[in-house]
């Protein structure tokens, strides 16, 4: 089996890339894609740690990490749907999806 740390390195690279995109990009859809990358990084870590048994466990093996990852995938789908609908609605009002130019609610 591949050492568990390799999976964690991939996950660390993904989350750092996601935060980089979230901080440096100004396009609403690009930021949504970055959020999806971050959620996927969390999922990879949860699944790797559960499969390698790196969680407090007393009785028989339980797969709460896998169940948690399933919930995260489901919530990520809901988040993408709402975020993209928001992007469409914002574009209809402001004719831009550059978050720098959407400043009506900014003090």
């Amino acid at each position: 089996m591949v050492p568990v740390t390799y999976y964690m390195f991939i996950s660390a690279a993904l989350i750092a890339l996601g935060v980089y995109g979230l901080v440096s990009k100004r396009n609403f859809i690009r930021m949504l894609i970055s959020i999806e990358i971050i959620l996927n990084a969390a999922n990879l870590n949860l699944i790797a740690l559960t499969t390698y048994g790196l969680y407090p466990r007393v009785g028989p093996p339980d797969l709460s990490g896998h169940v948690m990852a399933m919930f995260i995938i489901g919530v990520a789908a809901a988040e993408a749907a709402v975020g993209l609908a928001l992007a469409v609605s914002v574009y209809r009002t402001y004719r831009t999806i550059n978050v720098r130019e959407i400043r009506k609610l900014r003090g």
Partner: protein
Amino acid sequence: MSLSVSEVIFGTLAIVTVASALAAVESRNLVRAATSLMIMSISLAGLYYLLSAGYLSAFQIAVYVGAVVSLILFTVMLFPPEEPSGKPSDEAAGLLSFALILGALVLMIVNTAWAAAVRPVPIDPVGWASTISRSLLERYTVPLLTLALTLAAALIGALTLAKTERGEGEI
């Protein structure tokens, strides 16, 4: 030094995952970014399969490649091509946060004795489908129902947000 088959597959999937995530964040074209997100999801599903979570890998492909990426692709088509954006200060802040997060995480991973604590869960050829279903229906019933309600509410909300009144602006 000889590599086993699963190590070679792992290495390939790892490189594809990180490279396509980089492409999803950095490529100029939003369609290419969405396609890279799709490639990243597929290779992550492969990694889940290597972690013997076949059930989750199927779930990942169904939800990400099937729903999220196609949703993003169709939405991208509604907008004009992305104008080159990003001030140098934004770029610098992004690179700084990238370096800080990656550095902190790598330090944490390297300085912890993970190998000593590893107790692999016994492998199940069908990806623990029955175990997961059982715990979904027994231990996690309320979260499962909440997730269902959340999905329904989110989709209705998305429809309401994106709906056009008759005669209102079109895109």
